[in-house]
């Protein structure tokens, strides 16, 4: 066996070397030349025959196309067929793509289909009038928020929201969500906006105003809010009557309100949300929140926040894109220990938003709030708003804001906001 295979191999080498010998190739015998000529003429004949057949086929094809003008247009035939990648079925449900996607570049670029959904929202603010010491510039590019969202694996999805301000870059949120942990616990880990009330969880571009209410600024940390690194678990509480969800969150204690002096001092937050459809077009959303943690006024000083929120929504389903009403209030009590003594402050806002045409929303807000570090100073204010939506992806808003500050000083301001977003279509806020 072995000698035979060796002989074959040797023969093969001889054949290779021999066939590459130029002298051998250039001097074919006369009979070979005749054979070559015959082959050549055969090939010519064959080529001619095929050219005729192809021409005939082309003629028939164009005749057929002319006879069937109503046929659906096929993709442009001039473009070469792009390689396609199939997205795993079901990705659309989580905001991902479905079906076939074009793949650019080489075949390995198929991994691009796993890129996260990317969107960028620009938030441009303008202010005019007497601000009574307000530091908001007349025109400012407030921030750009970039979001990256995708499914991690069969067990988790991840959401990143990075904000780029005029002179700072920050992580607004970055968390992983485990939607199907046993026990029905919706688990989130990362840096998050908290579940305290309604406004604290909202990003700037989903707010119905250009600013945040006084109570948020005075008691709940303003724009940054209670956002912090932590762990959140939320569970539905089954009952035969209505939607009830309990959320428990633990944070490091490093936010605009809470500052933990020790590693072992954490900030805790609890939220209970009840929701009930009153009819197919109206519903009621109630919540209670509590937050506790250390503050920065002393080693053993703590802050306790208690919040209640109520939202009524009206949306007639047949005309939902033209008519919507939202009425909401939040009440917040703050108990802050500090060297000067306990400060018991209270703040609230009440808002009304009415969508009166497909692109127009009118709004009003009443504000009242004490200060967290001095309960005796009480600010009051009110706003009127008008919002215009050229499309789902941009928004122009004007807000007249009147504020009477507790130390004295009255502000009358006209605020503008331009919001514009590009990229993936995110979920509509509810």
């Amino acid at each position, binding site marked *: 066996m072995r000698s035979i295979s060796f002989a074959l191999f040797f023969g093969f080498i001889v054949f290779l070397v021999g066939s590459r010998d130029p002298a051998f190739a250039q001097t074919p015998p006369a009979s070979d030349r005749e054979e070559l000529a015959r082959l050549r003429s055969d090939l010519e004949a064959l080529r001619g025959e095929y050219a005729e057949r192809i021409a005939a086929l082309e003629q028939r094809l164009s005749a057929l196309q002319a006879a069937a003008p109503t046929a*659906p247009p096929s993709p442009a035939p001039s473009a070469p067929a792009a390689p396609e990648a199939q997205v795993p079925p*079901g990705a659309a449900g989580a905001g991902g793509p*479905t079906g076939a996607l074009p793949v650019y570049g080489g075949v390995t670029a198929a991994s691009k289909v796993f890129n996260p959904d990317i969107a960028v929202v620009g938030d441009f603010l303008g202010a005019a009038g007497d601000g009574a010491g307000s530091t908001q510039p007349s025109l400012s590019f407030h921030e750009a928020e970039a979001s990256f969202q995708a499914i991690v694996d069969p067990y988790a999805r991840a959401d990143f929201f990075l904000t780029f301000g005029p002179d700072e870059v920050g992580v607004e949120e970055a968390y992983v969500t485990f939607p199907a942990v046993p026990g029905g616990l919706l688990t989130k880990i990362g840096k998050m906006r908290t579940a305290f009330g309604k406004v604290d969880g909202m990003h700037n571009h989903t707010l119905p105003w250009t600013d945040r209410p006084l109570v948020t600024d005075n008691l709940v940390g303003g724009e940054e809010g209670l956002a912090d690194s932590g762990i959140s678990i939320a569970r539905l509480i089954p009952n035969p009557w209505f939607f009830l969800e309990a959320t428990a969150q633990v944070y490091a204690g490093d936010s605009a309100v809470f500052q933990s002096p020790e590693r072992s001092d954490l900030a805790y937050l609890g939220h209970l949300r009840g929701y009930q459809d009153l009819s197919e077009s109206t519903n009621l959303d109630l919540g209670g929140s509590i937050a506790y943690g250390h503050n920065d006024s002393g080693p053993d000083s703590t802050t306790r926040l208690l919040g209640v929120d109520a939202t009524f929504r009206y949306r007639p389903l047949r005309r939902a894109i033209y008519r919507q009403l939202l009425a909401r209030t939040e009440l917040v009590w703050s108990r802050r220990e500090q060297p000067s003594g306990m400060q018991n402050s209270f703040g609230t806002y009440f808002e009304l938003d009415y969508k009166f045409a497909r692109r127009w929303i009118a709004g009003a807000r009443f504000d009242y709030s004490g200060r967290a570090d001095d309960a005796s100073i009480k600010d009051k204010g009110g706003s009127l708003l008008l919002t215009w939506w050229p499309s789902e992806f941009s928004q122009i808003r004007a807000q007249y804001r009147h504020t009477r500050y507790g130390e004295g000083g009255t502000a009358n301001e006209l605020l503008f906001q331009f919001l514009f977003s590009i990229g993936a279509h995110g979920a509509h806020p509810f």
Partner: protein
Amino acid sequence: MRSPFFRSAAALALVAAMASPVPAAINVVTTTEDLASITREVGGDRVKVEAIAKGYQDPHFVEAKPSFILKLHNADLLVAVGRELEVGWLPPLIQQSRNAKIQPGADGYLDASLTARILEIPTGQITRAMGDVHPLGNPHYWLDPGNGRRIAQAIEAKLARMSPGDTGTFAARYADFDRRLKEAEARWDAAMAPYRGLKIVTYHRSWPNFCERFGLDVIGYVEPRPGIPPSPSHTIELIQEMKRQGVKIVLVEPYFDLKTPNSIARETGAKVVVLAPSVGGEKEITDYIRLFDYDVNLVVSAIEETGGK
């Protein structure tokens, strides 16, 4: 206490409980009433079906209400239209459902569009300057009875996998649905046949599958671009084009304002027809076949009213 009798009785009870399980119906949640109707056709009493969006509601803009989270929490199967129709509201609902069965990619998640015939899949570069375009094709594909059949097949296959014991039931129910749909299709085709090639205008791009199936030629839209409300200049152009081509029918979905369509109709002598895009769009549209009965009747009578061809 531990008598042999007691023990054997307990064993018997256990065996009885294991041998004759009363199989619970499969809990199905669908995003639209059309998918719910088709699921009922195939599943019969072996399924319990609930839809999220109402038939008279714009399916692009459904609110992600917590009450829907409760529905999804208990679902064994979620059937979605797909093609990004529900992109604005379904993902947060699924995420908050705490239901591993219906997460995208899991066995209990069915995208009904994967086996359907999809029209208007963009081939070149698309941008939002074109309006709210659906990059994966037109999601209103259920408005072709052929796609209804394909959806039913996909649901039958899925239900059979989830409840292998009922495979025969599902197959028989599908065959029955298929037969009734075929009969109905013959009826609809006969009714629409005289008007093949008739030019019409629609409000939104909801009807490409319906119009292709029944031979209607859409020459324009009341919306200047998908999802962008009517503008005066576009409306004037549309009126001129309708007059030039003699268009007498304007199809409108029940969730759009009729002001602009009515003024177009006044200018052109056309008739505004509020068609139902979904089961439940009107009270009498209780299932998928009645949806086409209703729409075909309405279109035919509107065409006859406006002078035949």
